[in-house]
C-alpha cells in the first residue's frame, strides 16, 4: 500500500476508474490536486475557459462515449459556475463526477475567501454529493461516486474536498483494472433499487407478491395489452440509448409492426428513416407522431419521463390509450401521466423479456390511418412559400437539412444548443447512431453545444463532430474556441445566425403580437472572431454557397467555423402551442390539423 497525499490518491483513483481526460479550471482551493496532477501526469487535463463549459464538456464526453465524464473546479465561484452544467446533466441522466476544491476545514463556516456551500447548493441538481472530511476516506468516496453516477438512472455526483484534506496523507492501493469502460455504464447496484421491488405491476397493485413473479406478471400483462392492441405506439426515450437497447427496440417494433415515436433525447434510439419511425412527438414534433399518440389505444413508453414538452397538458395526453411505462427510475412513473402498467427495472433486462412475449402482428389498418398524416416535419418547400431557390438566401431549414445530411453521411456526432436550430436539427436528423445526438433536452441550456462537442470529440476522436448553435447561445460559451485551439480539437462549428434569440422571437411573434422585447441580439463578426482565436472560418449567405462551404469545413485539418447568415423571421413548424394538447398541432401559420 502506497502512502501519498489525498490529492495524489485522487489522480490514481481517477485513473483506476478508467478516466482518461478531465475538464477543469484551477484555483486556490484545488491547487493541491493540480499540483498532484502535474506530478502524477494522469489523467489528461483540458483547461476550459469557464467552469460551466467544463461541466458541459464532461457531459458531451459522457453522452458520446457512455463513460462517466469528469469536471474539476475550485471553491466559491469556480464551484458555482458548475451548477448549470450539473443541472443539465441531472435533467438528462448523464453520468458525471464533479470535483471541487473547498476552503481548509478550519475555515469552513467562516465565510472565508472563495468559500461557498457547494454541497448544499448542488443538492437539487445532483444525484448525490460528498464532502471529504478525512484524507483516508477519499479513495472509497471516489469509487462510490463513480458507482452512483453510472448506476441505475445515471446522474452527476459532486465530491467537495477541503484544501487541507487534499494535502493530508492517504494510503492508496491502485486498482488493477479500469472500470470506466462502456461495459460498466450501469452497475448492478442501484440506488433506490428497492423501488423496483414492489413497484412493478398494475397501478396500485397488491403488496407482498414475490419480485420475480410480480415482474413476470407485469411483463405478461404488458405483452397481452400490446398483442391485443389495434392502434399501438412505442414511445422511446434516452433510457433506450443509455441501456444500449436500440437493437432490441428495433426487433420489438419489427416483430409486431409497431410504430415508433422517439423523443428529443431518444432520436438516436431508432433511425428516423426506418419505415416504422413516426418521428419526434411534442412541441415541435411531427404531425404523424402527435396524431398517433392521440389516437393510440396502447402506448409503450420506454426510458422516458413523459415530460411536459412531450405530452402537453397531461390530462389531455393520449386520451384513449392504456400506457405501459417501463423505466429504471420508479419515481418518474406516474409523476406526469398515469400508466395502466408500470414496469420498473433496467431495460437491458425488461425489454428483452418483453420481446420474448410479443407475437408477430400486422397493423395494416392502423398504418393506413397513420400514413394520412405527414411524417416529415417540413416538405422540401415550406407550406405557403415558393420554396428556396439556389441563388436565394439561405434559410435555417435548408441549413439544418444540409448539416443533418452531412452528419448522417459521415456517421458523425452533433451537439446542438437550444432554440430554433436545435428543433430544426432534431427534425432533420437521419439515422443517428446511439450517442451521436447530444443536446440539452430537459434543462434547455443555451451555450451547451460548443463545449459538449469539444468533450465528445476528445472522447470519440474516430468520429467527425459538429457543434451547431444559434448566434445567441454561441455567445454564451464562445470563449471555448480558445480551448478548441489549444487542445487542437478538430470540431466543426456551424452558427445559425439570424440576429435574434430565434425561439424567443418566434414565441413573441406567435403569442405576444410581435412585440420583440429583448430578443434582437447583435454579435461580433463570427468569422473574424474565430480567426482571432486561430479557427479558420467562412460566411455563407446563399443556398448555392452552402454545399461548397460544408465541403470546405470537412476538408479543414483542425477546427473550422461556418457563420450561416439567415433571415430573421423564419419560424419552426410544426408547433404545438404552449399549454395546448397534441391535437392542436400547427403545421404552418394559418394551417391547423383538424382534430
Amino acid at each position, binding site marked *: 500500500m502506497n502512502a501519498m497525499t489525498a490529492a495524489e490518491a485522487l489522480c490514481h483513483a481517477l485513473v483506476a476508474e478508467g478516466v482518461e481526460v478531465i475538464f477543469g479550471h484551477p484555483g486556490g482551493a484545488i491547487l493541491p490536486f493540480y499540483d498532484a496532477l502535474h506530478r502524477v501526469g494522469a489523467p489528461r487535463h483540458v483547461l476550459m475557459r469557464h467552469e460551466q463549459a467544463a461541466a458541459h464538456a464532461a457531459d458531451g464526453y459522457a453522452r458520446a462515449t457512455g463513460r462517466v465524464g469528469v469536471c474539476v473546479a475550485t471553491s466559491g465561484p469556480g464551484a458555482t459556475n458548475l451548477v448549470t452544467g450539473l443541472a443539465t446533466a441531472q435533467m438528462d441522466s448523464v453520468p458525471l463526477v464533479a470535483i471541487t476544491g473547498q476552503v481548509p476545514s478550519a475555515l469552513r463556516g467562516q465565510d472565508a475567501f472563495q468559500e461557498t456551500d457547494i454541497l448544499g447548493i448542488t443538492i437539487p441538481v445532483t444525484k448525490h454529493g460528498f464532502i471529504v472530511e478525512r484524507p483516508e476516506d477519499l479513495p472509497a468516496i471516489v469509487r462510490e461516486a463513480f458507482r452512483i453516477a453510472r448506476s441505475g438512472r445515471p446522474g452527476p455526483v459532486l465530491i467537495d474536498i477541503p484544501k487541507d484534506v487534499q494535502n493530508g496523507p492517504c494510503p492508496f492501493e491502485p486498482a488493477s483494472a479500469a472500470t470506466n469502460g462502456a461495459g460498466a455504464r450501469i452497475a448492478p447496484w442501484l440506488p433506490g433499487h*428497492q423501488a423496483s421491488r414492489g413497484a412493478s405491476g398494475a397501478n396500485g397493485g397488491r403488496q407482498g407478491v414475490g419480485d420475480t413473479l410480480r415482474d413476470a406478471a407485469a411483463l405478461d400483462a404488458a405483452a397481452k395489452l400490446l398483442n391485443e392492441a389495434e392502434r399501438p405506439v412505442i414511445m422511446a426515450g434516452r433510457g433506450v440509448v443509455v441501456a444500449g437497447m436500440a437493437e432490441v427496440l428495433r426487433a420489438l417494433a419489427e416483430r409486431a409492426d409497431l410504430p415508433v415515436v422517439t423523443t428529443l433525447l431518444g432520436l438516436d434510439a431508432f433511425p428516423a428513416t426506418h419505415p416504422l419511425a413516426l418521428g419526434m412527438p411534442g412541441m415541435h414534433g411531427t404531425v404523424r407522431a402527435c396524431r398517433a399518440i392521440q389516437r393510440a389505444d396502447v402506448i409503450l413508453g420506454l426510458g422516458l419521463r413523459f415530460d411536459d414538452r412531450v405530452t402537453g397538458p397531461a390530462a389531455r395526453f393520449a386520451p384513449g390509450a392504456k400506457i405501459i411505462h417501463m423505466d429504471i427510475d420508479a419515481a418518474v412513473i406516474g409523476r406526469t401521466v398515469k400508466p395502466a402498467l408500470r414496469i420498473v427495472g433496467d431495460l437491458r433486462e425488461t425489454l428483452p423479456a418483453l420481446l420474448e412475449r410479443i407475437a408477430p402482428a400486422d397493423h395494416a389498418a392502423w398504418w393506413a390511418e397513420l400514413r394520412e398524416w405527414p411524417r416529415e416535419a417540413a416538405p422540401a418547400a415550406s407550406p405557403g412559400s415558393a420554396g428556396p431557390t439556389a441563388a436565394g438566401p439561405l434559410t435555417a431549414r435548408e441549413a439544418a437539412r444540409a448539416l443533418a445530411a452531412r452528419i448522417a453521411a459521415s456517421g458523425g456526432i452533433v451537439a446542438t444548443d437550444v432554440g430554433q436550430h436545435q428543433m430544426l436539427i432534431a427534425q432533420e436528423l437521419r439515422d443517428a447512431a446511439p450517442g451521436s445526438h447530444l443536446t440539452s433536452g430537459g434543462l434547455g441550456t443555451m451555450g451547451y453545444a460548443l463545449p459538449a462537442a469539444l468533450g465528445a470529440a476528445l472522447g470519440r476522436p474516430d468520429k467527425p463532430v459538429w457543434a451547431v448553435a444559434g448566434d445567441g447561445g454561441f455567445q454564451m460559451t464562445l470563449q471555448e474556441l480558445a480551448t478548441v485551439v489549444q487542445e487542437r480539437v478538430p470540431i466543426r462549428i456551424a452558427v445559425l445566425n439570424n440576429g435574434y434569440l430565434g425561439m424567443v422571437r418566434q414565441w413573441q411573434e406567435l403569442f405576444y403580437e410581435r412585440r420583440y422585447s429583448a430578443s434582437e441580439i447583435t454579435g461580433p463578426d463570427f468569422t473574424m472572431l474565430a480567426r482571432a482565436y486561430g479557427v479558420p472560418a467562412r460566411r455563407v449567405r446563399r443556398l448555392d454557397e452552402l454545399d461548397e462551404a460544408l465541403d470546405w469545413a470537412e476538408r479543414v485539418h483542425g477546427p473550422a467555423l461556418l457563420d450561416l447568415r439567415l433571415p430573421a423571421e423564419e419560424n419552426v413548424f410544426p408547433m404545438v402551442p404552449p399549454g395546448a394538447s397534441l391535437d392542436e398541432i400547427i403545421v404552418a401559420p394559418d394551417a391547423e390539423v383538424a382534430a
Partner: protein
Amino acid sequence: MTDALIIARLRDRPGALERALGLLRRRALAVRQLSVDAAGDGVIELALRVDETRTPRERVRLELLGLVDLLDITDAAAQPAIETRSDPE
C-alpha cells in the same frame, strides 16, 4: 382526511437530511408533520405524516427511494399510536 405515516431511515452523512427535505419541497409533497431523530449508529430517522388526499404515500415512498443515503422506509399505520378522546362529559 386520511393521514399516512412514513418512517425513512437515512445514513447520517453531510447533506443527507437536507437532500431528503429538499426532495419533498422540490416534488411538492405536502407534509403535515415532520420529526427528525438521531437513531444512533450513524442513522437519522425521519418521520413524515402526509395527508393522503393531497400526497399519496406511494408517491412519497417512490420519491424517497431515489435517495442514495436511504436505508429503509416503513409505511407505518395511519392511526396515531396513542388515541385521545374528548371528555365524556
